[in-house]
């Protein structure tokens, strides 16, 4: 979006944006501090946002720190991605009641109150684009996802303070955002004060911003934004080399690194729960005491033993095979299946892994020993 039309608002202006969205009927959701982490929650104003909070992240580590300054978006990402807003952990699909020998079906309506996602990160926008390809733009759209997604008003907060786990610059998903939003915020907190550069990404974004007192962004403001993003990119030190990555992993299915990662991996599934693109789900039927049948969909993880259940037992019985499935899906076969990477570089799986397994490190290890083979995988060859 052209920065020529960018505007400038302050914290009161952001308050007003949230208020206008609320008046327009949006369910205003944004980052809130809950349980010691930045999580999605209901926001009615800047006061609900993580003002003065900063996060420190590392493999297996996430720590929120309150410094009491006036910054709103000076943290990276929390464990709760926006996936849950559009693709809830559980979703009733239908229910049926018995009526003599017949069944009467009813399905929950997909007429949801439109969501306003305030403070989504550029990597999260990329994640929504990935989910769109699976749940909305494939052959069969999921009505619940589509309704929530298409109705959602998105306010992006560009990244100024990446965490040590972030690698969006490798994935081309941040720290700035160019498309896919209604409004984009860049927080400036320099000698001239605390303001937000606002860029408009849609007509409805323009309409909302028109209802808020703002100034044209000056060249200095735009330069300030540029410097924020440049500094954020510089501070993003973690890297994933994506050059030929899909093919690299596809030809290294017998690499000893899978077993080495599995030595540490608890198969807990945390990485899949915090991942903003993991979409696997289970479908389960239940019957109530009154005989009503309900079918519910719930999030699933490829680390669950039953995920690959095929009459008699799981296909992927070892942790090694399940870790390999997860990582090769994210970085390799996702391309085959959906024409995009399944990873957006948010780093959540690194921070929230209880044992600190880092997919960038795993991929780099395989790249540095491309072609190594675990003992027993191929005759006459040994791992190096």
């Amino acid at each position, binding site marked *: 979006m052209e920065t020529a039309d960018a505007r400038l608002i302050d914290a009161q202006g952001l308050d007003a944006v949230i208020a206008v969205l609320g008046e327009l009927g949006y369910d205003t959701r944004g980052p809130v501090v809950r349980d010691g982490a930045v999580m999605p929650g209901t926001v009615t104003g800047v006061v609900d946002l993580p003002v003065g909070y900063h996060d420190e992240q590392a493999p297996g580590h996430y720590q929120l720190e309150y410094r009491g300054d006036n910054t709103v978006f000076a943290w990276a990402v929390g464990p709760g991605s926006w996936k849950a807003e559009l693709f809830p952990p559980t979703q009733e699909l239908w229910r049926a009641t018995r009526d003599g020998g017949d069944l009467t079906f009813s399905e929950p309506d997909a007429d949801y109150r439109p969501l306003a996602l305030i403070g989504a990160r550029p990597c999260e926008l990329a994640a929504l684009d990935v989910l769109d390809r699976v749940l909305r733009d494939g052959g069969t759209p999921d009505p619940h996802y589509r309704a929530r997604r298409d109705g959602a008003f998105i306010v992006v907060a560009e990244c100024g303070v990446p965490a040590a786990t972030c690698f969006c610059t490798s994935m081309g998903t941040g720290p700035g955002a160019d498309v896919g939003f209604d409004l984009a915020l860049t927080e400036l907190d320099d000698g001239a004060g605390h303001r937000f550069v606002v860029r408009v990404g849609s007509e409805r974004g323009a309409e909302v911003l028109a209802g808020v007192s703002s100034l044209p962004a000056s060249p200095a403001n735009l330069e300030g934004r540029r410097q924020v993003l440049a500094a954020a990119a510089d501070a993003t030190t973690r890297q994933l080399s994506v050059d030929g990555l899909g093919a690299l992993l596809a030809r290294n299915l017998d690499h000893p690194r899978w077993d080495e990662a599995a030595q540490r991996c608890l198969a807990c599934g945390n990485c899949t729960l915090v991942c903003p693109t993991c979409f696997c789900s289970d479908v389960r039927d239940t019957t109530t005491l009154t005989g009503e049948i309900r079918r519910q969909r719930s999030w699933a993880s490829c680390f669950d033993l039953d995920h690959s259940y*095929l*009459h*008699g037992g799981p*296909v992927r019985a070892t942790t090694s095979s399940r870790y390999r499935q997860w990582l090769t899906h994210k970085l390799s076969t996702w391309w085959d299946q959906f024409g995009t990477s399944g990873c957006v570089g948010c780093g959540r799986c690194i921070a929230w892994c209880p044992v600190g397994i880092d997919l960038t490190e795993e991929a780099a290890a395989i790249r540095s020993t491309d072609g190594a083979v675990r003992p027993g995988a191929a005759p006459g060859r040994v791992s190096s």
Partner: protein
Amino acid sequence: MTKELAQLVAGHPLLAGLPGDAVATVAGCARNMAFSPGALLLAEGDPADTLYLVRRGRVAIEVHSPGRGQIVIETVGPGAVVGWSWLVPPYRWHFDARAIDPVGAIAVDGACLRQKAEADPALGYALMKRVAAILLERLQMTRVRVLDLYGDDGAR
């Protein structure tokens, strides 16, 4: 040895493509035989002295068990080879082989063939390669059957 017998020998897959003199050598040990349905080609425990090249009809490889009667382990058809135990000591059959249909087969005298193979190692090696290929295929198929592929655990 008749010319017809040599042609029959040459036409069997085991020997197809071998040089004419090699075929003639094998045919020199061979005779043409016919078996009625139910007739035994070879019987467990008997001295193993014959290689059968099946030309028509099916042959069952069997073993008998008290209370279960004749258990068919494998059936083979035209183009198959029946009887291997003449190859190696102690030259004794381990199973029965019985004609299911009217069976036409070329019976090759095992001792005669061994003698000629010893005398002409090139011929012997050429024959052994072909014999080994068939044995290998039969062994591989037997191994797969041991898996109980279509049973409860194997059905994936």
